[in-house]
């Protein structure tokens, strides 16, 4: 019995090749688009997923655009549970054109790469960075994007700390994992501080965020509370959270857009469901005499229904498979184009699972009405049509 159903499932779509090819193409496109949209959403969360649970981020509680005095560093170090400390400022410079955007941070050179081991820098390059106050370390992807070599001078125009800056590339870091952001630019905090002292006297010794290392992720909540309690009622009250929560707050601010993309990726599945359901309805209509014959031969109605389902699912799943195979290469092309927006752009295993599920859903829903009609075919009427 099952062999019969299977054979029908494979043979029936071949009877109407043009229609099957068209339907197949439609589903391939839909599954591909669905996968790409899923990948965009996961790229949005890349920073969150790459975050370490052994790091806390302390910022000014008013908002990220407010800084904290450098003097906080010693007070934070003295807090129980804090094992390491680094700090950074958002630099926000422009490289030639505003459209060349990439994130730039002024980091405390000695501690930063120790605290963030997923940015792998060769020891000699790190040494060179420590020796040169104008030194910079950039991600592999960023260096490739602009063709920078070690020793190159990179001019940046400051937007927050107005002025023209020139940095010398001293090192290129590699990400420890595929999900590590290789699109960042690091300059030295002490150099920036020196420049600020010259340009805007009185604004120096300010820190954008403190990066706190803790020994055990389970201590995150208590250490955070200790830090914030220490600075309560001061001029710059702090807000300390895990790096994950910190990254998530960025994603949450653009949550509406993520939501819109998710809704739209469901819409494409609905569109293709309508197309597929239409195909199946036509097929079932044409074959009502066959279904009547099968019934006359003594097959039960559920067998007839199963035939429709099997055909629909076979088409949907094979199209889904092709779509999933194409998603990888397509994501590489799209990821290359959106490099500066999404530094990490890879198809996640969950996305592929969702694609299979969507394909299966399309197959099932599309067969719903046609299968019911096929099961209800009256033998006499069906056979009369054939006459």
């Amino acid at each position, binding site marked *: 019995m099952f062999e019969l159903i299977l054979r029908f499932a494979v043979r029936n779509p071949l009877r109407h090749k043009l229609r099957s090819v068209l339907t197949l193409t439609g589903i391939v496109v839909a599954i591909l688009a669905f996968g790409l949209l899923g990948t965009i959403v996961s790229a949005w969360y890349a920073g969150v997923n790459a975050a370490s649970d052994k790091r806390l981020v302390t910022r000014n509680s008013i908002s990220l655009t407010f800084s904290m005095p450098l003097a906080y560093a010693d007070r934070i170090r003295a807090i129980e549970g804090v094992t390491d400390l680094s700090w950074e400022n958002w630099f926000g410079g422009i490289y030639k054109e505003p459209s060349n955007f990439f994130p730039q941070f002024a980091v405390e050179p000695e501690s930063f790469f120790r605290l963030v081991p997923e940015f792998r820098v060769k020891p000699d390059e790190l040494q060179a960075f420590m020796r040169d106050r104008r030194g910079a370390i950039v991600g592999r992807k960023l260096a490739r994007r602009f063709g920078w070599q070690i020793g190159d001078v990179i001019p940046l125009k400051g937007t927050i700390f107005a002025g023209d800056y020139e940095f010398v590339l001293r090192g290129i870091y590699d990400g420890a994992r595929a999900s590590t952001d290789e699109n960042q630019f690091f300059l030295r905090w002490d150099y920036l501080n020196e420049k600020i002292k010259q340009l805007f006297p009185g604004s120096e010794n300010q820190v954008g965020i403190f990066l706190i290392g803790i020994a055990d992720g389970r201590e995150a909540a208590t250490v955070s509370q200790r830090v914030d309690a220490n600075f309560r009622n001061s001029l710059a009250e702090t807000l300390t959270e895990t790096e994950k929560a910190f990254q998530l707050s960025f994603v949450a601010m653009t*949550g509406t857009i993520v939501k819109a993309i998710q809704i739209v990726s469901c819409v494409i599945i609905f569109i293709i469901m309508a197309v597929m359901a239409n195909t199946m309805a036509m097929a079932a209509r044409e074959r009502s005499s066959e279904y009547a014959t099968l019934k006359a031969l003594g097959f039960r109605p559920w067998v007839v229904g199963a035939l429709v389902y099997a055909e629909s699912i076979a088409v949907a799943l094979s199209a889904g498979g092709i779509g999933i195979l194409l998603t990888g290469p397509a994501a590489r092309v799209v990821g290359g184009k959106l490099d500066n927006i999404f530094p990490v752009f890879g198809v996640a295993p969950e996305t592929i699972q969702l694609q299979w599920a969507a394909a299966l859903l399309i197959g099932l829903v599309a067969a719903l009405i046609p299968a019911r009609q096929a099961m209800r075919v009256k033998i006499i009427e069906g056979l009369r049509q054939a006459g």
Partner: protein
Amino acid sequence: MNKIPFNYIWRNLLTRKLTTALTAGGMALVVFVFTAVLMLDAGLKATMVATGRPDNVMVIRAASETEVQSSIDNAQMSVLETLPHIALDDTGKPMFSRECLVLYSLVKKDTGVATNVTIRGTGDMGLALRPQVQLQTGRLFKPGSSEIIVGTNLAKEFKGVEIGQTLAFARRDWLVVGIFDAGKTAFSSEVWGDAEQLKQAFRRPVYSSLIFQLDAPGNFDTLKNRVADDRRLTVELKPETQFYADQSKFLAGFISVLGLTLSVIFSIGAIIGAMITMYAAVASRTAEIGTLRAIGFRRTNILIAFLAESLLLSLLGGIAGLAAASGMQAVSISTMNWQTFAELAFAFKLSPQIALASLLFALTMGFLGGVLPAWRAARLNIVTAVRSA
């Protein structure tokens, strides 16, 4: 006998309701996405254009791009205030407003997440320069006090900003005394207070920006050149409308590129749907087509009839999609603008051009889906076609 009656075409769609509904439904969804994207883009632009006024000029520090990043020290401020071509109000006072902007994180009602909102320090003249800002309930903040007023979008979307509630920041409690309506502008997503008080509380020695009104619109370029020549000034002048339009460039670009790419990809699905339907229509009516040809209709008549059927089908889908999208006008979107790093609310906006573009988009899908099947119908051989019955 030169045209196949429209009734014939229309009836054909009616006989197979399920197929017609599914095909048109698929197209309706595509048109819906397409229209919604155009509406969103138009809504964002309308918001940004309405925020600025053509005769107002925004002054920020050169290369700072946004008001939050900008700072203008007192020395430059006093030079700027003595510039010519600044309009005077009825009492003879020059119409300029020194403003101070900071970002503060507030918690959204529906999601519970904290997001950045703009707090603008301004004064009487700041309100006079923006007649689109009207007090809705409560009263204005008193100069020299820790009082604030909030925009309608903020009041609707965020916690803790009702009249009588206080926001605690910069070691003070700020009392909300009023809610202002700024229509569909970016100001509706802001908190306003007294510039001097905010500056002191946040220990800011400098202002962020200066806004003034021109005495005559033609004088902008003269003024711009004069400022560029003045070695004491490192600022940038922009008409307010352009300033706000520039601030949403990235977001607008992102929405339209992503949305239009999606629409094109989605339309492939819908075109295939139309093709399947039309091929089936041709196949099931082969005998009919043969008969029509036999009684004297020409190939072009058949071609046009089937193409018209496909176009009609897509028009149905287009109208349905457009109708659904027009319902989106009631929805407003609130998200972070990457460029200003602050919350911005804007609505979907439908215009006749967008409606026309959407219907044309639908008809294009119908044409692309219908042209090959119609071609096949027109090329059928009369004898074999009639015999197939």
